């Protein structure tokens, strides 16, 4: 039973990280209806920046995380301004291709600058907490707490502030939002900034218990897509629920079924779900 609870905790850690990444993806999709294939690369850049600030410049872990969030948010906004905005009236295939271009560009730049080696980021929180027979490294606790407080903050921002409501309004009804005078450019830039920032924070939180390398975003991006399809593309609670489902499925499946193929579990779930219900679990209709 302890082993089971241990896996539940691991699943919660994974789910928190997936949730932060999937939230950014789903926000962007809700606003622009673009599947942002560059999102995984933004996550990867976030990990490298916090690694660089913390290890090479010797600054505090939290400073590194904030710096990474700032830089990645900026890159994300630039992508919106320079690429997705000019392509907003293009056929749907074009912005997808452009997003893949951005992804491979960012990866190549990082690889040229920092090399392709696998790196491990140190963490200031190395203690391990014990609850009976269950062990919980402090970093994992930090991940869970930080991720859920960020999700809470995002919820408050979207529901309680004016600027947050404009994002929700535009996701709900584009034309309606324009009619009441919402500035579409501002909302799009804000959404991309939030999405990038969340990805960078997720990367900084996850990097100490995972490896940092240029292709680290691929797997996470594909899983984040699985999550937002599960939860309905554009849906915020859907992304969090989907992330927890995938996190638990992987932790439990990896333990009880097969450790080698645990990365395949999410995709097997996706194939199964889309075969049964082509529009995703919680969506009401095809966009």
């Amino acid at each position, binding site marked *: 039973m302890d082993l089971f609870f241990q896996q539940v905790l691991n699943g919660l850690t994974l789910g928190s990280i997936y949730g932060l990444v999937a939230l950014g993806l789903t926000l962007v999709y809700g606003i622009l*209806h673009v599947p942002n294939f560059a999102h995984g690369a933004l996550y990867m850049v976030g990990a490298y920046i916090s690694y660089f600030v913390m290890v090479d410049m010797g600054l505090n872990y939290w400073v590194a995380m904030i710096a990474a969030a700032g830089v990645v948010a900026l890159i994300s906004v630039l992508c919106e301004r320079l690429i997705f905005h000019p392509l907003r009236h293009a056929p749907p295939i074009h912005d997808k291709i452009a997003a893949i271009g951005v992804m491979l560009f960012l990866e190549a730049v990082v690889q040229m600058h920092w090399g392709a080696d696998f790196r491990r980021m140190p963490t200031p929180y190395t203690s391990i907490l014990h609850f009976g027979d269950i062990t919980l490294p402090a970093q994992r606790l930090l991940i869970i707490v930080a991720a859920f407080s960020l999700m809470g903050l995002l919820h408050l921002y979207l529901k309680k502030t004016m600027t947050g409501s404009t994002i929700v309004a535009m996701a709900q009804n584009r034309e309606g939002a324009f009619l009441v005078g919402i500035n579409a450019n501002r909302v799009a830039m804000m959404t991309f900034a939030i999405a990038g920032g969340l990805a960078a924070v997720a990367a900084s939180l996850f990097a100490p218990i995972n490896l940092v390398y240029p292709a680290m975003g691929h797997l996470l991006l594909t899983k984040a897509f699985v999550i937002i399809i599960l939860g309905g593309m554009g849906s915020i609670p859907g992304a969090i629920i989907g992330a927890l489902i995938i996190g638990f499925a992987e932790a439990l499946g990896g333990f009880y079924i097969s450790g080698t193929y645990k990365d395949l579990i999410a995709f097997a779930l996706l194939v199964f779900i889309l075969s049964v219900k082509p529009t995703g679990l919680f969506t009401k209709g095809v966009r």
Partner: protein
Amino acid sequence: MNRLVEFLVSPAMKILLIALALVFPFVAGDEYQIYVMALAFIWAIAAYGFNIITGYCGQLNLAHGGFFAIGAYVVAILTVDHGWAFWPAFVASMVAGAVFGFLVGVVSLRLKEHYFAIFTLCVGYIIYLLLDKWEEVTHGSLGIINITPPEGFGLIDFTETIPFYYLVLFFLVLAIWLCSRISNSLVGRTFRAIRTSDDLAQSLGINLMRNKVLAFVLSTVYAAGAGGLYAGVVRFIGPAEAEIQHTFDLITYMLVGGIGTLMGPLLGTLIIMWLTQFLQSLEEYRMIVFGPLLVLLVIFFPMGIIGSFLSWRGRRAARRSPAHKTLSRVTEDDQDDKNREAGNNA
């Protein structure tokens, strides 16, 4: 000027291109250039497959590189682990491409636009993970070495570069010929109707699912066949063949040449492959150049070289004489059709 433009689209141009390809090994500086050209032809075959599903039918299949890898692995596993000869293994690779393509297509093509692209991205990743992890069958991340080259039955030695070049050229011409037949047929027009609008095509009585699956299976057979040839010439493959970069390379080839045009994939592949060769030092970091290049192409130049040329020619003809235009539309219905297609695509 006018003659030149007309020559470029005339049948004589095709004969000239084939003749150029035939004499290339005799004018090439060294064997390495012939080898690069043969590789470029192999990638061009895969790009033609991509062009059928994405260019003509409008479905962005991000697992295309994965099907290339499946073809390469079928040849590698059958020849190295099971002692098959190359040719039966090559046929098996295309059959595998068709079978896997059908299975994936039947599930994935029920999804539209974004869902389809995301789903195929995941399929590509599943293929990569399987090739990497399923060590009993695929040799895992070590890859497979010493793949049997094509047998020449005592007449030709395909381990030599020049005979192999001609072999690949033969398959390329076959692939382009088949593609042009498809493009001009009712099936090809059906594909383009689907690209223009799913709903409109359906209201014309087109069976969406059947035609999309057909386009998908055709494209995966192209990809798997190209992969099989690749395994035969390079004779070493690894899971890296299934990485998303290859799919992206193929998109670049297609976009540079002109997506949805007949000669676009070939032109794009040759230009980019040779550019990469000249920028040898860039090989590993080529995406620093090609990533932004692709973004710029998509924003400013979405029709590619051939597409832009055709639409420029179409506009020119229209400007010269309106009467001539209607005439030319009857006689060169096909070419004009492509102009409009290219226009729609943009």
